[in-house]
């Protein structure tokens, strides 16, 4: 049983950042802007958050430090995404190009900056954010150890973001307007919706959630941040497509990926899987092969927002 609980706890660590970042990208693409700079945004947002933690965690209470780091990560993620928004919305630049530029920039800048301020490129910090057991909830049999032990507060933040995003996107006026800009911006404009503003909002939300996702990914996975998030930004993109641009399915897609990833990382600790004698490499490939398989089955049914990736030109016919 303990290995089952361990599996659940590990899955949460893998899947929450993926889900948060994919939800961010959901807002961006629903508004009509393709943002493949997620990798860069995660690194950039996470970098500033972790740098803050590294410098100030000794001098403030844990919760305050985490809260401040979250705010900083989100703000810096937004700052970077602002560059993408400006290029792709105002200047109608190719969205792939500007995202690629930001991905390159972000890692290079973070390493460069880290070297300038602290000589080494790794930002080290102490992981004081893990909660052994949440009072009351952690004592519930079965569910307690599954969801409320060895956990991070950011996990629950991720779930909250999922619920809020789903509500905002489908139950509010803003959500409807945002989606309309990603489907048919001309029509949206004709009924008085400010397409530029909606798209800015979408991209900035992806920046905020991307930065947050970066921080959420880094905290449990390392204590020596090396300005990389190991391709999680691109994986989040996959989760979005896999989740067919819908919040609830993104949740399941991220969960699926997180679970397979956990099995890949932790199979040697599970006697049953270890007993099968399958080589290490196959386990490591498993999440990616599985995703590819699921995509082949599901992809033809869902094309995604019609106008995503197309710059909005008021005068176009």
């Amino acid at each position, binding site marked *: 049983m303990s290995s089952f609980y361990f599996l659940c706890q590990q899955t949460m660590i893998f899947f929450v950042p993926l889900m948060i970042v994919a939800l961010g990208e959901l807002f961006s693409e629903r508004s009509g802007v393709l943002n*493949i700079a997620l990798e860069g945004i995660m690194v950039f947002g996470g970098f500033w958050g972790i740098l803050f933690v590294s410098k100030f965690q000794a001098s403030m209470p844990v919760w305050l430090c985490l809260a401040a780091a979250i705010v900083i990560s989100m703000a810096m993620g937004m700052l970077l995404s602002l*560059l993408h928004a400006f*290029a792709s919305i105002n*200047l*109608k*630049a*190719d969205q*792939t*190009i*500007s995202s*690629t*530029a*930001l*991905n*390159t*920039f972000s*890692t*290079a*800048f973070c*390493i*460069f900056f880290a*070297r*300038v301020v602290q000589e080494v*490129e790794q930002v080290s910090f102490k992981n004081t954010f893990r909660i052994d057991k949440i009072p009351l909830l952690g004592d519930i049999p079965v569910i307690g150890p599954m969801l409320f032990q060895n956990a991070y507060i950011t996990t629950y933040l991720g779930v909250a973001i999922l619920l809020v995003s789903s509500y905002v996107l489908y139950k509010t006026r803003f959500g409807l307007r945002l989606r309309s800009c990603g489907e048919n911006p001309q029509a949206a404009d004709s009924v008085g919706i400010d397409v530029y503003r909606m798209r800015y909002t979408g991209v900035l939300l992806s920046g905020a959630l991307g930065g947050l996702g970066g921080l959420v990914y880094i905290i449990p996975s390392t204590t020596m941040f090396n300005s990389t998030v190991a*391709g999680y930004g*691109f*994986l989040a*993109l*996959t989760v979005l*497509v*896999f989740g067919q641009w819908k919040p609830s399915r993104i949740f399941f897609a991220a969960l699926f990926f997180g679970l397979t990833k956990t099995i890949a990382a932790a199979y040697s600790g599970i006697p049953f899987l270890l007993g099968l004698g399958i*080589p290490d*490499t196959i386990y*490591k*490939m498993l*999440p*990616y*092969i599985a*995703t*590819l398989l699921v*995509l*082949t089955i599901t*992809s*033809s049914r869902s094309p995604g927002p019609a106008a995503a990736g197309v710059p909005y030109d008021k005068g176009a016919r």
Partner: protein
Amino acid sequence: MKRLHGPVPRRNYTGLLASLVAIVIGLLLGFLVLALCNPPQAANGIKTLMLGGFTGGMKGLGNVLYYATPIIMTGLGVGLAFQTSLFNIGGPGQFIVGAVCSLFVAIRFNLPGPLGWIVPLLAGMLGGALWALLPGLLRAHLGVNIVIATIMMNYIGMYLANHIVKQAIYDPLKGQSQVVPAGHTLPYAGMDKLFPGSMANIGFLIAVVMAVIVYIVLNKTTFGFELKACGKNRDASRYAGINEKRNIVLSMMISGALIGLGGALMYLSSAGKYIKPVDVLAAEGFNGIPVALLASNHPVGIIFTAVFIAYMQVSGFYMQTYRFSPEIVNIIISVIIYFSAFALVIRNAVRSFQLRSAPQGKPAAKGGKKV
């Protein structure tokens, strides 16, 4: 629209101009960063950044060409797929699978004479092509998003490559792939005479030939036209009788073959490059994307862009002498790419200027090669 306004040249230099403007802005910003973060060494830093590639004279230049080789190949691959509107982000996977295939053949098969390095190169191309085949098929026949499919293949390819390295061509003492036996490495083809002491070999020449071939295929053959037509408008192509599914698959395979060849050329040199089986995607595979974008996917443009980026990387290496992190080069490159995304704005500005000036009987602009 444009015909109404009189003669507007279809070919002009605005694309090149836009790239040059972007490069100047990138360099200036780089200087600014250097000046801000370490004022006393800034002058030396800037000097090294501009001239670092020439350190050691012809030797330095030869090394630049050596480093440019895989960048040209990945750029060509990504650029070709872009022409068919396919964003092949699977460079890391195709690159490393190609590299491992060629190393495997070079180390395990003892082929005689020039076959000793030619066959491994072909194996590299085959490996890369196979690795791009599956995403191509999935895209063409099942409508799977090509970006996602190639990203997944990157990871699968990386783990597979590491597995093969560990099982078949491993040097456990050094924790990396075995040394390619002499005679199976790439010949120098006179490059060692031209650039004495450098790592340059026939690889650069092969890359240049490949770029020319890609240019000819894309611009002078029916097949190339079909590839581009599928990129421009898939439905119209199908209506015109082009088998668009076949073209998608072929475009991906050629793209993968070019990138795989890049991996082969990089690791078959005698310059001491080895594959370390660590779980990190091959960065060289991603380098193709900015190169192709900066060159607007033009095969010959890609040669120059790749040499430029390689030059900057070599300069960045020497900047460590003044305690500058070589990452400054990537910062500059990213700024250049970002501003080259504004090319459209610059191009439109130039065009509207031409439109305004053309009707007054002025010659609109000099014609010339589109770059």
